[in-house]
């Protein structure tokens, strides 16, 4: 049952072949028996999930079910869930029970998706390996000595290991796509503003975007149909006409213009990754797509620009965690300054502290122009590069990551090496574009992800291009050994 995709499970529910309660119990059993090998979930919410499942079955019996009613999912622990701990994988919020639901959580609740639990992640979504979590690292189901990527590492590992058919994630610099690539699943980062950020704990507000993580493009489209939509509580939310993101799944790719950014195929890319991407390009050629080389001349500056903008916003976004109203408070503070310094010093892990300090520095008087302002200017140039490229092509294809999953601890000593694992994903966030990662093969037994980048609001086209690939390939069906 757990090998079925989300779409297949939805169909099985619709046909009455299985009930939501049965499905939910099945996945809860898998979590119980297998997650100790992965640590993909911080909180399991079995009782609430079963309650929702019973309600979903009852709704279906009344003929009130929607496409995803009763299909269980997991939420990244960055989304606020009413009455349930919402930790952001931080000691700071270990005791935080949210009094409200995030917009995304509300939407899945309204549809009637049982929530199996909250997934592990890098602390406050800051990391690329899921090793900064206060709840311990997540292991990659393809090789438990390796990382699943991050920051949505728990969501990726849970979906890859068939502990849940779908998961929510967030992507600030690649946090959906990079772990999707490293665990062999499909993940979509929508256009900035598509998915409400209300109740999604902010890391870098101008870059954060929630999105689906599942096994296939079709599944991602089904989830995005639930997640996307205007939310008046989020001023950056976009008002767009309702859209079925799976409407173009079967559109022919004949004559589709795919751009290959030469900057994404340079040195630093693992030969195994390069081989897989070349094969994917050949596949698309056979489907009738035309390839054009495009230039994204400023993309080389993405990582430095990102590591000014994101920490700057995070230094301010995380100021509310001060030990005053909720969250971690140090023992016996001797005065206000002591309360602040120890609560934050003890409540935040080293990577979060590093970014707060970098961001505080970048915004300080005397440095603001040289760092923050300059980074914002380059950010516009990066977006302009994409605008020009999309004048020539429909979609951009690139590797998602330069390498496959690395070993636990391999990059923790050197933050810059870690940051470079997002080198192909970050520019997309700076430009606010939609992009996805889908499994395209293996290198030395580890999954390789292919990235598809679309123009603004072109999610449906992206999903179609990905679906056509998945119709002719089986990479997305591979299950890691031990989790079949």
């Amino acid at each position, binding site marked *: 049952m757990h090998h079925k995709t989300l779409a297949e499970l939805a169909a099985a529910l619709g046909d009455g072949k299985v009930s939501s309660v049965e499905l939910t119990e099945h996945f809860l059993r898998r979590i119980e028996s297998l997650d100790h090998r992965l640590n993909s979930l911080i909180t399991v919410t079995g009782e609430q999930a079963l309650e929702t499942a019973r309600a979903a079955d009852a709704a279906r019996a009344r003929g009130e079910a929607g496409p995803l009613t009763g299909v269980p999912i997991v939420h990244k622990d960055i989304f606020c869930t009413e009455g349930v701990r919402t930790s952001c994988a931080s000691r700071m919020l270990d005791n935080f029970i949210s009094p409200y639901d995030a917009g995304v959580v509300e939407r899945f609740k309204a549809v009637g998706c049982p929530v199996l639990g909250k997934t592990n992640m890098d602390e406050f979504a800051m990391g690329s390996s899921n090793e900064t979590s206060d709840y311990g690292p997540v292991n990659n189901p393809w090789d438990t000595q390796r990382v699943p990527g991050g920051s949505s590492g728990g969501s990726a590992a849970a979906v890859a290991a068939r502990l849940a058919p779908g998961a929510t994630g967030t992507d600030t610099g690649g946090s959906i796509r990079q772990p999707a690539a490293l665990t062999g699943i499909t993940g979509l980062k929508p256009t900035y503003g598509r998915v409400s950020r209300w109740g999604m704990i902010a890391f870098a507000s101008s870059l954060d975007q929630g999105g689906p993580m599942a096994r296939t493009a079709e599944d991602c489209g089904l989830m995005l149909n639930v997640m996307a939509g205007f939310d*008046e509580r989020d001023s*950056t939310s976009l008002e767009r006409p309702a859209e079925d993101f799976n409407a173009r799944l079967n559109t022919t790719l004949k004559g589709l213009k795919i751009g290959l950014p030469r900057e994404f195929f340079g040195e630093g890319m693992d030969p195994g990754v390069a081989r897989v991407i070349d094969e994917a390009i050949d596949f698309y050629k056979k489907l009738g797509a035309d390839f054009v080389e495009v230039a994204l001349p400023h993309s080389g500056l993405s990582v430095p620009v990102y590591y000014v903008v994101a920490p700057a*916003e995070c230094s*301010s976004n995380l*100021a509310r965690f001060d030990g005053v109203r909720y969250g971690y408070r140090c023992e016996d503070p001797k005065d206000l300054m002591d309360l602040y310094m120890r609560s934050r010093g003890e409540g935040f892990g080293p990577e979060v502290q590093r970014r707060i300090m970098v961001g505080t520095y970048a915004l300080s008087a005397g440095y*603001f122009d040289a760092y923050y302002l300059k980074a914002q200017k380059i950010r516009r140039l990066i977006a302009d590069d994409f605008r020009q490229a999309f004048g020539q092509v429909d979609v951009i294809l690139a590797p998602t990551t330069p390498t496959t999953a690395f070993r636990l601890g391999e990059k923790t000593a050197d933050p810059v090496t870690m940051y470079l694992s997002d080198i192909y994903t970050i520019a997309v966030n700076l430009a606010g574009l939609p992009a996805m990662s889908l499994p395209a093969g293996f290198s030395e037994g580890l999954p390789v992800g292919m990235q598809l980048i679309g123009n603004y609001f072109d999610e449906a086209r992206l999903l179609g291009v990905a679906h056509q690939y998945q119709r002719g390939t089986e990479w997305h069906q591979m299950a890691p050994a031990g989790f079949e």
Partner: protein
Amino acid sequence: MEWETVIGLEIHAQLSTQSKIFSGASTAYGAEPNTQACAVDLGLPGVLPVLNREAVRMAVKFGLAIGAPIAPRSIFARKNYFYPDLPKGYQISQYELPVVGRGQVDIELEDGQTRTIGVTRAHLEEDAGKSLHEDYHGMTGVDLNRAGTPLLEIVSEPDMRSAREAVAYMKKIHALVRYLEICDGNMQEGSFRCDANVSVRRKGTEKFGTRTEIKNLNSFRFLERAIHFEVERQIDILEGGGAVVQETRLFDPDKGETRSMRSKEEANDYRYFPDPDLLPLDIEPAFIEQVRGSLPELPDEKKHRFMNDHGLSAYDAGVLTASREMAEYFEQVAAAVEGQAKLAANWVMGELTGALNRESREITDSPVSAEALGGLLRRIQDNTISGKIAKEVFEAMWAGEGDADQVIEGKGLKQITDTGAIEQVIDQVIADNPSQLEQYRSGKDKLFGFFVGQVMKRTGGKANPAQVNDLLKQKLS
């Protein structure tokens, strides 16, 4: 050595919107602590701000009233600092691009001169909560009801040269925001308060002296006293050969002095940057025109109308238009006694204001309504009572003894205008005071007043004074 004082004010006017500037929570004053703070005001994880359009409309209203340009695009920025009553660890404010640009207001000085004070800018921002240090036994209580209340910060140029000018300017802005109905102006509740930047320089020099900033002055009197103290303090330092330290100071109204709060070295680096949770605020010309159309008659316009239509002096017109409520009260009274606006003005500025001040009441809370006062003045106009008796009637009306006619009737205060009756009293007075009569007739003209007094005394003040004068003159000659 002659010194010149230089003052600039930053006025914080709390906008009288129903809900907060970035959340739907109520802004009503005086609720139980933390009962009017929603998830957004508490700065919970994941919450986001949404701008209240009404606050924008009010800011635009103010901008138009001071003749300032309205920015077609302004930006909300985060001002970052840690404080327990600042829930997010930053205040959302406007920094580089404020919604209201440069404008000006005229202030009237007591010598009748007018001075123009520049308003550098006005911007929208959210208020913080309140820290309560009493009753918590060494701990601090935090009340976030006020957190997120919309404020318009109105920044003046350093154009004021005395505490009086500063007070006149603050009063002018106070009147303006109340005329515009964008702020209730309640200073006790902190709805209208200011920070004063004060420095002194040698007369004739151009360079400003080092300034200090006196925080959170919530009355006109405190502003005046704080500036006086601060100017003296700075002059003492400079004349003693010292240097003024740039710092933030607090005014202690009990001791009448300012004291250091934090120096420039300790000042925060607020790390302003555009708030990525809010889009730039774009204001369409059509919106500005719509707001312009809704502007009420402003104090200066009203003042000129009072001078032209009612023939009032600049001073009287200025006093009567100082608040919208006072102006409305006056206009109602004046309408009751057509052609005698000066009479109405004298009564509103004299008896009424005196009585209000005596009991520290607002004009809106006056026991004698404008209609009732109009009724009283009509009785002066039609000679039912004299101006002097009217004062007695007014006191009775103030004490709640009814309207003018009821009091006049009840106390028998109706003026005696019957010539025969007055003549009778005059004859008696003359008969009873033969020696005064003789002295008067032998040239002591001053005694005329004595006879008037005697007649008024015997009629209980009710005799028509003009008739008494006329008749006495006849009888005494």
